[in-house]
């Protein structure tokens, strides 16, 4: 049997389905940002940005960019009616204090115990940068990860134990990949969905940690 991995937009669309009405959500820079496009119009979801925005909206039309209205990815945004501005202290209190319902982060690796690596590859010549990743990992009530199932070279990104430096320990609740959806539980990694045509055995072969089939 053959199968098609989800496109980046399809992963975003799938993750968007799990964001409930009224949720306060931080979408990490990069891939997770795409989720905003797929939030259903009949839901009100409050997007938070590290640099002091709550309830920001879509990018402005060309010509209406404001250099003082950007998100954490330094992209131009707009504000929704009912949005608010606040300083960095309050912004990170929203995370660290457990007020954000969900954050969605990218990942280099996710371990079977929910450890997340997404800030450093550990390469000796790399310039380290961490931003708000560690704060989001420990702070949000639910941490979702959105990632390709394997690296470009085909190496598993879901692993038994991290080989990259850790961002946050035991923090990941759910992983959305181009092949499946995985819940991180005390019993292990439970696959709740997978793309059509992909066998569980094949998925396990592409994964560096034992999976539990919970797709039935």
């Amino acid at each position: 049997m053959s199968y098609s991995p989800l496109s980046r937009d399809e992963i975003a669309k799938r993750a968007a389905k799990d964001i409930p009405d009224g949720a306060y959500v931080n979408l990490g820079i990069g891939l997770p940002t795409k989720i905003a496009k797929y939030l259903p119009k009949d839901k009100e979801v409050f997007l938070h940005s590290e640099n002091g925005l709550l309830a920001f909206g879509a990018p402005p039309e060309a010509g209406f960019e404001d250099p003082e209205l950007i998100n954490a990815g330094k992209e131009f945004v707009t504000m929704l009616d009912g949005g608010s501005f606040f300083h960095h202290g309050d912004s990170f209190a929203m995370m660290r204090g457990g007020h954000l319902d969900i954050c969605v982060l990218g990942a280099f690796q996710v371990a079977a115990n929910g450890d997340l690596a997404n800030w450093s590859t550990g390469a000796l010549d790399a310039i380290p940068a961490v931003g708000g990743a560690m704060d989001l990992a420990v702070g949000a009530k639910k941490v979702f990860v959105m990632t390709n199932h394997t690296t470009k070279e085909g190496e598993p990104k879901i692993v038994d134990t991290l080989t990259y430096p850790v961002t946050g320990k035991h923090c990941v609740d759910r992983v959305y990949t181009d092949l499946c959806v995985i819940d991180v539980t005390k019993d292990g990694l439970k696959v709740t969905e997978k793309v059509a045509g992909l066998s569980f055995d094949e998925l396990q072969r592409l994964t560096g940690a034992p999976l539990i089939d919970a797709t039935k």
Partner: protein
Amino acid sequence: MIDKTQKSMQEVLSQIKDGATIMIGGFGTAGQPAELIDGLIDLKVKDLVIINNNAGNGDFGLAKLLKSGAVRKIICSFPRQSDSWVFDELYRAGKIELELVPQGNLACRIQAAGMGLGAVFTPTGFGTLLAEGKETRNIDGKDYVLEYPLKADFALIKAAVADRWGNLIYRKSARNFGPIMAMAAEVTIAQVADIVPLGGLDPEHIITPGIFVQHVVQVPAIVSSAQA
């Protein structure tokens, strides 16, 4: 559509059960959510732990709540006032437990809870009776006491204006503990004089973003005869 203003006060307050820890905003009567407190009294719940700066004035609001017998313990900085006779009598009769906290440590411990900190070293109270038995440390030549966050199941606060997402602005010195209590409680219930449509509050002027507020109850402002 998210509308945090839709439930009745009674419906909102009915979440509060025996033994709950409740922050109540206000400094004296300024910012005291008197109508929410009246609603709380009507619930007839017991064994409450109350966090407030004071321990009630006169016979209304917080004082009335104490008098109703609902409160097991109060955590505050300044219980003793000229008109705190309700508290005074309960305290002298051994019917209420008091945890006295310096006002700035009260504020700081509430902030620590809202900010998700595990504990903070604060200089206030070092060497005093109120720091007895607490861990201390000298940091850069100055002495500090380790204080733990004050969390709550509920915060009952009073603001001036809200929108349906729970964004709040306050009025003058009624702001006091409202913003930091809203950040520290699991469920924050705000009573407000006015509710405006979404967009009616300028995003630059919002003091408490709606993420910190779960329910809004409108209580039209009455010219108060309450003493400040």
